[in-house]
């Protein structure tokens, strides 16, 4: 076995020899450097493998061959080997990046210093002597200062000076701590501590841990004494940021893990919890308001360290802390580098690899799948939930959300197109007394959804010569390693091989993208893949899962056809869409909460990146991911308290209501219940058209699925005497009213449809919450049919937008003559959506009202009826404004929508017609699905379904309707034999010719009177609330940021304060 001391020997030796090498041959010397840094990686790898294979706890070295209590010991266990592997990996990565950098590669002293930094970090990790730790700490900081002085930004001297003061003070504290420790223990060797001595009794027993901890903690840059570190981050080169947060902080945490066991756990654990929580939350808040990328990452590092401290302090498995730490180490250093290239190149639209890498690192940093941090956070929360440690769970999730706020903001800003102002663009009708013209809620200039400029509305990606550079190779390698290790780790936590296989589809399509396979061919493969996926998962599905599996697979599979309309090359599109499909299906096949949540997060992420592909989608994507994260975290918090019982199998009635409420809140956010809906319209509207369609048809149902999955768990839960389902029912119905009302006043067609699907999902929730046979049937019936008719409508509208290039309804008009097929599809969709008989939509209404009346929810039924009336209004407006009325001159040559958009519409239409004619085709299977939960309360007589209250015969209705339609039609054809077709302007217009179609087309502000009467209901109060929340958080962040005044002496004072604070914490818990 390799002796640990070799690590130190190699780095030190290399540092000495390198100048000589460089004199002889610079190129070879750099190659030798690779060899050395590679060795640093290989050695721990060997240890790691050996330790895990041979089951030996320690690789041990006493330096001079004396008994262990007389020497400085070096020891490597499983944990140290792992940490060394990662830290040295990061070191190798930094070396490769810098020694072979295009502009100003590192030479001589910098490489030596890097080697010394590695020496310090390695020493810190393996040494078992307290004073030795001090030495290595100083070695690594001094070498870091050396590297700092070589930075390109000369502000680094200011930052470095502050850093020196702080680190000087911390080493002073550490030395004092060593002194006191020596007085108590009589030795500095951690392996030779005398047994049975109470280290923490008396004054000395408080003093040594206080000073030792102060020394280490301050070096870890805890909030509120970390301004000096942040100033250094800002001025230092990117690589130094990577070193500081990826290498040094990691090593220092390992130091901390050596000191912690010495101190009595009832003192140290609460202390770490408090310190970690403060750092985690405050640093994230401070990062939130940063405009400097490096400083933001600096604060983020500090916060991540806070998280690790929380984990250490919560007394859970130390391995979790290590996994989080290492994930952070790799991801952060990777992010420093991708950020560097990004900041050098501007927008990332033409740098797909860079976008992918940054995204992966951000995801990893946030502890989202498939990275190791995800499994670690999950396990951590499960343990905390088992201990009912709600407060810690809350802190961890709140901090993670805050982290998402700024990391995703940065990512979104990097990915957004150049046209994207980053604001929500929605056209608002001006007041009567305002000057007529365009005005928008919070935007500059004319709404960008207008005009023919954006024809096609597709993302434009082009590859320039610098799209890929060799520098992205190493981050890419790192990302790949992280993904692999993440999959392995998460598999260890609880994913099965069979469960993971479908996710390889993402990989497959990524590879296709790498080989520049045309999108159309990829779409074809995706359709094949979805069929294969169907066969693969079919045996695992039963009950609800089969139904939702059908909806997901059929819905997305059919809409894949629409992607054939894409021209050229859309990298990532199919990988993400297939990823979305796979995640959705995996949600269905999940057998444990972990699998479920894994798929849930994968679904969130893939859909987020799909939104971001839109041309103007920054704001939409940002809101989408923030609310989705919040939703996921609520669900996660709930899951953590279920004691590992799968939510789909939870039968018993526990005392604890909290998880129920948390999970339901999470689901409410996910289906955009009223109050938390503001993410939905803008993200659906600004995603690309074919993607929005998938969102609205399929993705919007996933929240409903979660409700059904936990149906037994949620039902009969009572909160302060109020049935949770009763509350949920009200939320559902209010959501549908609000969604419909807001859809009514939109000029932008995609906003109308987005609000519409929000309202329709409200009905589904209402149906579910009725908790009866009929209620559930109505909900599932609507889920299925809504998927079809909103798909028709969305794709029809997509065709219009594709042809006309505008999303504003009043700009089009009279398109029935140009796009008759789209019109027919839209017409059928509208009839179905508004619930007008004889189409299947009426079935949904009938089932729902019957269920509501049966349940005795009369007011909800009335509200639902009102909402459905309002839905009728906006649907008419939609079809009128686009297809009827006056044609515009610029659209006279518009052609029918392309076939790829029409085919899925007509497939859906056939299904809708079939269900309308024969409702039992759908309702009977639904009954069998629901049978295990509720006994049937409806019976069948032929095609007639009979409930306790009423009856409905879809078949007869269809025939009667046909009869009453065809007979008058024949009559009209007979009496009206001489009919002349007239031109557009031949109308009864006071015997005059109208001026021009734009002024004759009644479409703008179509329901102005309605707005006058009920507009107060759709005042953007909720948007204002959330905007206010955003401003509040930003101001909070600004205020907290000001604490770090930039004054070196202020920082020294903060450090002293921090030590006093620590001593209070120790005294307080003593």
């Amino acid at each position: 076995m390799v002796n640990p001391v070799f690590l130190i020997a190699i780095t030190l030796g290399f540092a000495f020899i390198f100048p000589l090498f460089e004199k002889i041959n610079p190129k070879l010397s750099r190659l030798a450097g690779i060899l050395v840094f590679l060795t640093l990686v290989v050695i721990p790898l060997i240890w790691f493998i050996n330790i895990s294979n041979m089951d030996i706890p320690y690789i041990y070295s006493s330096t001079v061959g004396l008994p262990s209590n007389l020497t400085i010991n070096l020891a490597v266990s499983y944990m140290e080997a792992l940490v060394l592997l990662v830290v040295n990996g990061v070191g190798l990565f930094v070396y490769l990046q810098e020694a072979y950098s295009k502009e100003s590669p590192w030479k001589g002293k910098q490489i030596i210093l890097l080697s010394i930094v590695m020496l310090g970090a390695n020493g810190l990790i393996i040494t078992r002597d307290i004073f030795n730790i001090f030495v290595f700490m100083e070695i690594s900081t001094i070498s870091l200062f050396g590297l700092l002085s070589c930075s390109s930004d000369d502000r680094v001297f200011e930052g470095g000076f502050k850093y020196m003061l702080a680190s000087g003070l911390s080493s002073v504290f550490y030395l004092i701590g060593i002194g006191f420790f020596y007085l108590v223990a009589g030795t500095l060797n951690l392996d030779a501590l005398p047994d049975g001595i109470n280290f923490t009794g008396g004054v000395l027993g408080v003093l040594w841990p206080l000073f030792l901890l102060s020394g280490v903690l301050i070096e870890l840059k805890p909030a509120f004494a970390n301004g000096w570190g942040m100033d250094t981050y800002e001025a230092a080169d990117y690589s130094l940021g990577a070193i500081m947060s990826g290498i040094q902080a990691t090593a220092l945490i390992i130091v901390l893990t050596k000191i912690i066991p010495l101190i009595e756990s009832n003192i140290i654990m609460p202390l770490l919890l408090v310190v970690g929580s403060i750092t985690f939350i405050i640093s994230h808040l401070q990062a939130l308001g940063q405009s400097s990328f490096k400083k933001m990452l600096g604060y983020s590092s500090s916060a991540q360290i806070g998280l690790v401290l929380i984990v250490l302090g919560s007394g859970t498995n130390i391995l979790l802390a290590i996994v989080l730490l290492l994930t952070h180490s790799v991801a952060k250093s990777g992010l420093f580098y991708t950020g560097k290239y990004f900041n050098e190149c501007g927008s990332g639209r033409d740098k797909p690899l860079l976008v992918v890498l940054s995204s992966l690192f951000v995801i990893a940093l946030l502890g989202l799948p498939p990275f190791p941090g995800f499994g670690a956070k999950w396990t951590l929360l499960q343990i905390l939930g088992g201990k009912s440690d709600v407060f810690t769970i809350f802190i961890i999730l709140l901090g993670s959300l805050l982290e998402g706020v700024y990391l995703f903001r940065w990512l979104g800003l990097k990915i957004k197109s150049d046209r994207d102002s980053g604001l929500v663009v929605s056209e608002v009708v001006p007041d009567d007394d305002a000057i007529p013209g365009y005005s928008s809620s919070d935007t500059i200039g004319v709404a960008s959804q207008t005009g023919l400029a954006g024809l096609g509305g597709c993302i434009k990606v082009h590859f320039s010569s610098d799209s890929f550079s060799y520098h992205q190779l190493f981050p890419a390698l790192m990302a790949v390693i992280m993904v692999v290790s993440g999959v392995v780790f998460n598999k260890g936590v609880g994913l099965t091989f069979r469960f993971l296989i479908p996710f390889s589809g993402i990989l497959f399509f990524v590879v296709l993208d790498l080989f520049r396979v045309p999108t159309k061919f990829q779409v074809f493969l995706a359709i094949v893949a979805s069929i294969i996926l169907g066969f693969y998962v079919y045996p695992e599905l039963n009950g609800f899962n089969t139904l939702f599996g059908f909806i997901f697979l059929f819905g997305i599979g059919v809409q894949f056809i629409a992607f054939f309309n894409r021209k050229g090359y859309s990298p990532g599109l199919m990988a993400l869409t297939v990823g979305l499909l796979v995640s959705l299906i995996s949600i269905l096949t999940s057998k444990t909460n972990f699998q479920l949540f894994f798929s849930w997060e994968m679904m969130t992420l893939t859909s987020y990146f799909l939104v971001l592909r839109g041309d103007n989608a920054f704001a939409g994507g940002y809101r989408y991911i923030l609310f989705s994260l919040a939703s996921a975290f609520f669900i996660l918090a709930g899951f953590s308290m279920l004691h590992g019982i799968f939510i789909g199998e939870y039968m018993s009635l526990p005392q604890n209501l909290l998880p129920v409420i948390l999970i339901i809140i999470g689901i409410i956010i996910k289906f955009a219940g009223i109050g938390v809906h503001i993410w939905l319209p803008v993200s659906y509207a600004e995603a690309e058209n074919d993607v929005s369609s998938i969102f609205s048809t399929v993705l919007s149902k996933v929240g409903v699925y979660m409700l059904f999955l936990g149906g037994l768990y949620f039902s009969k839960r009572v909160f302060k005497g109020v049935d949770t389902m009763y509350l949920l029912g009200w939320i559902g119905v209010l959501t549908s009213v609000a969604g419909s009302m807001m859809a009514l006043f939109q000029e932008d067609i995609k906003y109308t449809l987005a609000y519409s699907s929000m309202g329709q999902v409200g009905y589904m929730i209402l149906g579910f919450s009725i908790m009866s046979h009929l209620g559930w049937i109505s909900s599932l019936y609507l889920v299925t049919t809504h998927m079809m008719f909103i798909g028709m409508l969305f794709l029809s509208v997509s065709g219009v937008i594709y042809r006309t290039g505008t999303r504003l309804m009043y700009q089009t008009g009279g398109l029935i003559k140009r796009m008759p097929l789209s019109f027919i599809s839209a017409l059928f969709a509208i009839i179905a959506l508004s619930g007008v008989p004889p189409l299947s939509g009426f079935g949904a209404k009938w089932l729902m009202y019957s269920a509501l009346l049966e349940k005795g929810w009369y007011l909800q039924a009335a509200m639902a009826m009102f909402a459905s009336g309002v839905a009728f209004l906006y649907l008419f407006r939609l079809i009128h404004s686009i297809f009827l009325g006056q044609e515009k001159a610029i659209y006279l040559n518009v052609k029918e929508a392309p076939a790829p958009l029409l085919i899925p519409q007509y497939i859906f239409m056939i299904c809708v017609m079939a269900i309308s004619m024969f409702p039992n085709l759908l309702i009977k299977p639904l009954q069998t699905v629901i049978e295990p939960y509720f006994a049937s309360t409806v019976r069948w007589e032929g095609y007639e379904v009979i409930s306790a209250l009423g009856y409905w015969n879809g078949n007869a209705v269809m025939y009667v309707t046909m009869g009453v339609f065809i007979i008058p039609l024949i009559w009209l054809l007979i009496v009206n034999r001489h009919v002349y077709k007239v031109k557009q302007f031949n109308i009864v217009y006071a015997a005059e010719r109208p001026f021009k179609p734009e002024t004759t087309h009644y479409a703008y502000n179509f329901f102005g009177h309605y707005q006058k009467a009920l507009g107060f209901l759709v005042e953007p109060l909720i948007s204002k609330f959330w905007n206010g929340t955003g401003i509040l958080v930003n101001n909070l962040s600004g205020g907290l940021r000001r604490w770090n005044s930039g004054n070196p002496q202020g920082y020294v004072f903060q450090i002293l304060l921090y030590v006093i604070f620590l001593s209070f914490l120790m005294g307080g818990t003593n």
Partner: protein
Amino acid sequence: MLSAILTKTFYTFISLMVILNYALLLIGSMARIRAKVQGRVGQPVWQPYIDIIKNYGKRTAVTHGVMFYLGPVFRLAGGLGTYLFMPVVYGFVMFENFSFSGDLLLVMYFIFFGQLGMALGAGESGHPYSPLGVSRGLAQMTAFELPFALAVISIVAQYGTLSITEIVAAQQGGWQNWVAFTNPFAMIAGMLAFLGMSMQNPFSVVIAPQEIPIGPPTEMHSAFLGMLQTNRAIFNGAKMVLFMNLFWGGATHKYLLVAILIMVVKTFLIYLYVNIVGASFPRFKTEQSIRFFLGVPTIIGIIAVILQSI
């Protein structure tokens, strides 16, 4: 089977003829009553017949497109369907129509069918006043639907059924069993909503008669207009029959003719009520009528529902 279908067709035809002729006469007589109130002589009672025949007899017509052509068909189909999904006279197979296809909810939603088709047809004409009227009509509709829905829900809660036949059956045995007296709040809410539904003053912005020629029929003429007029008769009849069934005990007697007579009297009174209100009040603006319906009638409706659910 065939004979059953033929019988049904025959019954349907009878039923339709009865309602069409009755409703046309009703419209004519009401117009005359209104004229008297306003101090005019007014049109003859049979004027609606003259109008319809004249319009169907026009030799030429212009069309703006397929949807324009189909609009009146949709409208009439809507009217016919609404009527045919209801039992007209309780206890007689001849006037049972196709009420076995669905219950009250079907009738309420089928009303939309004709309105949608009509609105689409009017929209294709390209005349701005048509969608203007549609927009007003739809807006007003959602408003009066709310008190109406509440009234219906209250009745459903009262009798535990959505079947119109059963609701009528439950009201038999004397006037004191009518919903109008057993559930007066529902009746008031429903009858207020009915004012909006019949689009007379003060809710006549949709198809305003003289001074503002707007509304869906703006571009309609010849047989198209004839069809709309036919529908207006049938649809009005259907609505009044619905309200009679819901609130006023329906129409029944052991002799068919007497039962029809009862139907005639009751619907006449219902329509008279609309006209009395119409003759007495000026017109609301659209937003005013929306606010009106969402105000007092809705509150009354809510009271009706609450009273039934406790």
